[in-house]
């Protein structure tokens, strides 16, 4: 694999984030190119495949609403099946986007600029998928408004002491704030697309979303402050969301769930799975859309390092759960964990451990971190592993302390189509995104180019900026 030779930024003394010494214009052109292509045949193929799976999702959900949750493999004692597994899986994926856009922004990790738009889009679409499951699994979807504190025919209010209600607030706030954050970041780029538009329809469409942005420094001042504050708000928010998701489990009295390690363990797992999903999505995209000089190997390597860190945290949490169960001296707790490892779902447990604990260890090696194929394959393993983690946790329900109440959950065809279909929903939205919205934050990437710094000196200074530049006066007509 060819690696780009690292040259150093003249001011920061570090390797530049965007390689090949791109100019501002080249950045705009490179990012806008996929949105202005003449030939979308490949896109249509991908999009229609995604729409097909979206159709499967819609059919599954419609049948669910018609017939009820009995079409799923739920039973007694496993009253919570794939709906919660899929919900936690999708919400977790979303977390990497916020981590990249907010947490890395606060830590001034400039490398995030090349991937934050993409990762935030992934967040929003993943959270949409996640929100589907609590929405549809309630059985009587026509009274879903009972989860919100709005007056209803029973004159009752939701129970604010329940983690399930906290979840409603946490995930819907998370979705709203992520969307606002994403949109604020997009405004200058919509303006760029507006100003590049060749057709009137495009100009109007992008123009509406650009809100008449004209790059005024007086606006940028407030804009940058808003962006910083949103990052500062989103950082504790993202931690709170998966903490509260983990409360759905941890607050209930089920052996294997009722542990204090759940919040940090869930947050680490969420970031772990999310970064894997970012890699899965961006590795093909940077190749197809020729953005390899903007999303460089260095970006991928940094993400691999975060996967290694969070994957090891998750592995530590698996070990610590067992230790605490053993150390507690509580035989039911001990049974719950031994049962995970050797019980009915041992197969799922060992898939989870191999994918989540062993896979990231490859990233100790620089060669692996910089190998695109390895990254892509391993990221898919992580995605699979993290789905199984939630499955393993949820299946604690199958082994009640009373052996006569033990059961086994098997998914029906409808469980499977709903899960596969949710990927259709995700990718339909994703393909629409890459077709119509700049997938790299154009304005932000420009700020990390060396020439964006007012103190930057081109080596061949002298050309340009003098009277001979031929200033002329023209009156614009409008």
């Amino acid at each position, binding site marked *: 694999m060819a690696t780009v030779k690292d040259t150093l930024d003249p001011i920061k003394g570090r390797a530049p984030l965007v390689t090949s010494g791109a100019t501002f214009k080249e950045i705009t052109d490179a990012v806008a190119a996929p949105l202005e292509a003449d030939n979308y045949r490949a896109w249509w193929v991908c999009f229609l495949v995604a729409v097909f799976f979206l159709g499967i999702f819609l059919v599954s959900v419609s049948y669910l609403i018609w017939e009820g949750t009995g079409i799923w493999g739920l039973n007694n004692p496993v009253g919570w099946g794939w709906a919660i597994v899929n919900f936690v899986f999708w919400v977790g994926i979303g977390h990497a986007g916020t981590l990249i856009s907010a947490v890395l922004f606060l830590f001034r990790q400039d490398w995030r600029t090349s991937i934050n738009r993409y990762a935030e889009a992934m967040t929003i679409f993943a959270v949409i998928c996640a929100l589907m499951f609590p929405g549809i699994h309630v059985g009587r979807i026509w009274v879903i408004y009972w989860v919100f504190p709005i007056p209803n025919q029973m004159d009752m209010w939701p129970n604010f002491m329940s983690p399930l209600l906290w979840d409603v607030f*946490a995930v819907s706030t998370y979705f709203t*704030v992520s969307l606002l954050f994403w949109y604020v970041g997009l*405004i200058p780029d919509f303006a760029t697309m507006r*100003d590049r538009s060749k057709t009137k329809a495009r100009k109007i469409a992008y123009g509406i979303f650009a809100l008449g942005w004209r790059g005024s420094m007086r606006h940028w001042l407030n804009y940058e402050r808003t962006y910083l504050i949103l990052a500062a*708000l989103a950082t504790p928010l993202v931690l709170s969301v998966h903490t509260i998701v983990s409360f759905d489990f941890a607050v209930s009295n089920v052996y294997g769930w009722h542990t204090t390690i759940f919040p940090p363990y869930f947050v680490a797992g969420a970031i772990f799975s999310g970064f894997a999903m970012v890699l899965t999505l961006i590795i093909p995209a940077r190749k197809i859309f020729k953005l390899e000089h903007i999303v460089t190997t260095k970006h991928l390597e940094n993400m691999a390092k975060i996967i290694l860190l969070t994957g090891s945290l998750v592995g530590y949490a698996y070990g610590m759960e067992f230790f605490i169960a053993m150390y507690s001296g509580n035989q039911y707790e001990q049974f719950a964990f031994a049962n995970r490892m050797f019980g009915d779902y041992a197969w799922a447990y060992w898939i989870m451990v191999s994918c989540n604990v062993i896979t990231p260890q490859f990233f100790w090696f620089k060669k692996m971190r910089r190998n695109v194929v390895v990254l892509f394959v391993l990221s898919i393993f992580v995605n699979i592993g993290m789905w199984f983690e939630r499955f393993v946790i949820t299946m604690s329900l199958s082994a009640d302390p009373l052996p006569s109440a033990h059961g086994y959950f098997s998914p029906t065809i409808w469980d499977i189509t709903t899960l596969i279909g949710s990927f259709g929903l995700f990718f339909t939205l994703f393909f629409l995104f890459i077709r119509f919205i700049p997938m790299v934050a154009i304005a932000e990437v*420009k700020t990390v180019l060396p020439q964006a710094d007012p103190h*930057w000196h081109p080596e061949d200074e002298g050309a340009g900026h*003098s009277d001979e530049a031929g200033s002329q006066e023209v009156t614009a007509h409008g």
Partner: protein
Amino acid sequence: MAEKKIYGMLAEFDSTRAIYHACEEVRDEGYKHWDACTPFPVHGLDKAMGLPPSKIPWIVLGMAILGGIAGFTLQWWTTVIDYPILIAGKPMFSWPAFMPVTFELTVLFGAFGAVFGMFGVNRLPTFNHPLFNSERFQAVTDDKFFIAIEARDPLYDKRKTKKLFKKLGATHIELVEE
């Protein structure tokens, strides 16, 4: 139709370095009604322009406090006052259990304050603006940097302002109609 009013004079620059020094000069000349437009936020340009700090943090603080109070009051009123139900033997006023929702609403209101506060302060959306009358101004979202001095500025003088822009190394100068 009468001749259109002139909005101001627009100067184009090629680099962040040029616009930075140009802004410092325009500021020191004492102009008040002027603006710099750039494809991305140029670091430190607000200082070079002499702009006061943003008001956004105060809006966010106010909204976040409001959100927190609203969230807590909502939970207290619904659970303790309006329809008290004993759940799991917990006290009616189980305030620690109200913290997650209080926190979420604090963040939600704060974020609304940040985004819509920014729209308000910046007067967005403003779909039309005199500067859009300039063909060349379209490059402001690509790779060019602009300074516009408005005709209503007391120091504005067609000849003097143009001379200033020339001295500062503008690569193109034009008048923009209202």
